[in-house]
Every structure is written in C-alpha cells, then in structure tokens.
C-alpha cells in the first residue's frame, strides 16, 4: 500500500512539475539536501542575474542609458494565486553606473538622487493581478509604492514572468521583467528639468532573477 502511494505521488508530482516547466525530478539520493522550497516562498533576488536599467532624454536629441549595479529583495508571482504574490525590492543608489565616474558622483549628489540622504530606492507591491498568459509568458498588473528621494508614490506596472525552473545550485529559480515610465519631478528630482537638458520622464526596465 505504501509503495503504491509513493508511486502515485511521484507520478503526480512529476506531471505537475512538467506542466509547470520543471526539469524531470531526479531520483532521491542519500546526500543531505537543502530544505525543499514551499510554493509560497518568495524568490530572493540574485543581483548577478538581475538588472535595473534607466533611460532619460538628453538635450532633447538622444537617450542616455544607465544602470544600477546592485539590487536586493524578493519577489513571488504565482499564476495560480496571483493575489498571494509580492514584490519587495531595494536598489542601493550608490550602485548607479552611468559609464562615467564623474557623472556618477553628480548623480549621487543632492542635484539628483542625494544618495547620502536617501541611500536606497524601494518598491513594495500592494496588489498583483493576473492579466493573461501567452506562449509561456504570464503577464501581471502590479500596483505598489515606489520610494525615491524619500518620497513614496503609487505606481502600476505590467510585469512579465517566464515561470519557474530548477536552479543550477539546486532549488528553484524564477524571473520577471517590467518596463515603466515615471516623472522624476514627481519625486522632487527637479534639477535641469525645465531647461531641456535632461528629460523629466525616466523609463526604467527592471529584470529580476531570483532563487529559493
């Protein structure tokens, strides 16, 4: 009876895993393994495989791109239970990288991010709904509070998730990507807005990979 139950449960698990895009489950070994991840566990952001890229208009003729080299936090997008999802990320402002050390110092100064005064940018989701699913990509509408320069504003973004897969070091990995536009003046970052030197609108792309 016990053998039968085990066989049925293994087949069931393998079927579910395959449907969710998992690799086939390998045979259990005697070697110690990390505690199995629970479905409700959030994915911890893997900085090395994540990116935050921004784009801003320069002199009304071109777009300048820059990035933040560090990103921390956790996320969970569950297509079966979208309401249980959450995104909670922190970006250390000191990690800004605009491909010019002098400009990075200026961006960290009180003219822009005032990094010593406001060391991080944060986003905390307050609501997640599923919008659709096409070709293995699930789209969510994520509402949350974006905090920048000490000012918090609600924003709604569209996030795309490719699902969940086994990680290279065990466990599971997942990812999401979103692109949205904010007005920096809404967050008190007004310097050079009116003179046409630097645009007010900043388009931000956040691509996260995380493990659990």
């Amino acid at each position, binding site marked *: 009876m016990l053998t039968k139950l085990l066989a049925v449960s293994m087949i069931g698990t393998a079927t579910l895993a395959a449907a969710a895009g998992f690799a086939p489950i390998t045979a259990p070994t005697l070697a110690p393994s990390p505690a199995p991840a629970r479905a409700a566990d959030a994915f911890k952001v893997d900085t090395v495989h994540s990116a935050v890229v921004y784009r801003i208009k320069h002199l009304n003729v071109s777009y300048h791109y820059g990035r933040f080299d560090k990103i921390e936090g956790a996320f969970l997008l569950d297509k079966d239970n979208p309401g249980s999802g959450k995104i909670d990320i922190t970006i250390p402002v000191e990690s800004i990288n605009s491909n*010019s050390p002098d400009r990075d110092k*200026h961006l960290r*100064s009180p003219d822009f991010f005032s990094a010593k*005064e*406001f060391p991080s940018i944060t986003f905390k989701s307050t609501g997640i709904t599923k919008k659709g699913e096409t070709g293995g990509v699930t789209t969510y509408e994520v509402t949350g509070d974006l905090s920048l320069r000490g000012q918090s504003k609600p924003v709604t973004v569209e996030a795309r998730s490719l699902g969940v897969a086994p990680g290279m070091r065990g466990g599971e990995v997942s990812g999401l990507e979103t692109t949205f536009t904010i007005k920096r003046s809404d967050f008190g970052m*007004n310097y*050079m807005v*009116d003179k046409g030197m630097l645009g007010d609108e900043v388009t931000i792309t956040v691509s996260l990979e995380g493990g659990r």
Partner: protein
Amino acid sequence: MDPQILKQLAAGAIPPGLFAALVFLAVWWRPGPAVEAGRASRRTLWGALILAAAYITTHFIVLRGPVWPPASAADWLPYIAALAAGAGVMAGVGAGFRGARLMTRWVVTAVLIGGIGWMSAAGPIARSWNIRETLAHLGGFAAAALAASLAAARLTDRAAGPWPAVMIMLPVMTASQLLVVVYHSLLLGQAAGIAAAVVGGALAAAIVLRVLKRGFTLGPAGAVPSVLLAVTALFHGVVYTETEYGWLLGLLVAMSPVAAAVAMAFTARAASGWARLGAPLAAAVLPLAAAMAVAAGMGEAPTGY
C-alpha cells in the same frame, strides 16, 4: 565643462547679480553719508533683503518651489536663505542702530545659525546620526558659521566703497567653484553662486557709485548672509556628497574672512593704505589658495562628462 552646464550656471548667477546691482544702485543713488555718526548707514539693511529676494526667486525658478514640507535638505535652502537674511539684519541692526546690544544680537544670530544647521541636517538627525555625530556635525558647522559671520561683520562694519565687497566675494565665489568642481553639485554651487552674484552686484554698484562720487557701504547686513549661505552650502557638500576632505575645504573657506578680519585688526593703525588693504586681502586669499591647492591635489578637474 559642458556648455549647457555653463549656461545653466550663468542663468543662476547673471540675473541675481544684475538685480542686486540695480537695487543697490537705487538704494545708494540718493546722496548721503555711507557712515552715519561712526556707524554704518541704515541703508545697508537692504543688502540682507536683496540676498533673500535674489536667492529665493532664483531657487524657485531653477528648482521649482516652494516645497512644504521640505522633503530633502535642498528643499530647505530657500528657508535657510531667509534665516541667513535674518542674521544679516541682526548684524546690520547692530551696526546701524544704537541701543542694540552686542550680546543680544549675536545670541539671536547664534540661534538663527542653529536653525540653519538643523534645517540642513534634519534628515540625517532623524534617520541616521547618533547624538555624538549630531553634535559633531552641528557643532562644527555652528562654530565655522558663527566665526565667519562675526568676521564678515567686522570686515564690512563702517568700511565704505568696493573693498569690503571684494573681501566677501572672494570666499563666497571660491565656495561656489569648489562645490561645482570638487563636491560635484551644481545645485549647491549655484546656492553659493547666487550669494557671490549678489555681492558681485554690490561690487559693481560700489564702483559705479564711486565714479559718480556717491557713497556705498555693503555693511554687515549684506555681507553676513552671503558668507552664511556659502558656508551652509559647503556644509551640505560635506554632509551630502562623497567628497574626500570636504570638511577641510569648508573649514579653509570659512577661515578666509576670519583671517582677513584678524589681519585688519593688526593693520588698522598702519600708516600705509596699502598695508591696511593689502594685509587683509592677502590673509583672505591665503586659506582660499590652500583650499584650491587641496582640491587640485585631489585630482578633480572641471572636465565634466
């Protein structure tokens, strides 16, 4: 430096400078003594008002505003300019009115400087500094600001003509340049730059009025708020930028009027006019030259990006 950035800096400096020159000319156009009964004319009080008006208007044009409640230290700058103007009025009242006791006006000035310190560091005080850090930062700032203000008042009290404006303009202009080039903040550089532009306007007015054989005195009311605003902008630079030796540069700039006032005290009775003017000027330039040397040694260059 990027021509667009130079344009931005000029836009923040030329209008307040022109405005200051025109108002100073209008105030001092009417013939009358620059020094009345051994004390500076009450007309010098206009200096504090001109600085406050020029700074607050330019800040609002360049950065938008007013912002209430202020969310960042930069949002406090217009209110800081108003307090600095108040300190200028206190210094001017002391110089221009009888009966205003020395202790009373400098105690009020110290309170105003304390207010400026708190406005400048309200965020870190609330969020990250412990008591020791708060006392060290605010104590250092208050000591430097009070010493520079006292010295600026001493340098300009009862001294007519363009020279007092030169003495005040030197450290304020140097602060502006250091904030742009070394502290990498155009906003803070512009704060000190507006103060320098106002004193520059006073200098231009003083030269024109001298040619026309009319009197002009910058006076403590015009000098103290400019110096105070420059020292405060440097304090913001020390606290909110990642400049190495930022505190040393700020201290050297604040030392400039102090050194000039000390030199003036020693040479007040010198027979030669060159000694009476040259010694304070050299003393004012010395700490500023040291600050520029330190900045040059840090390898910062205004090449921009």
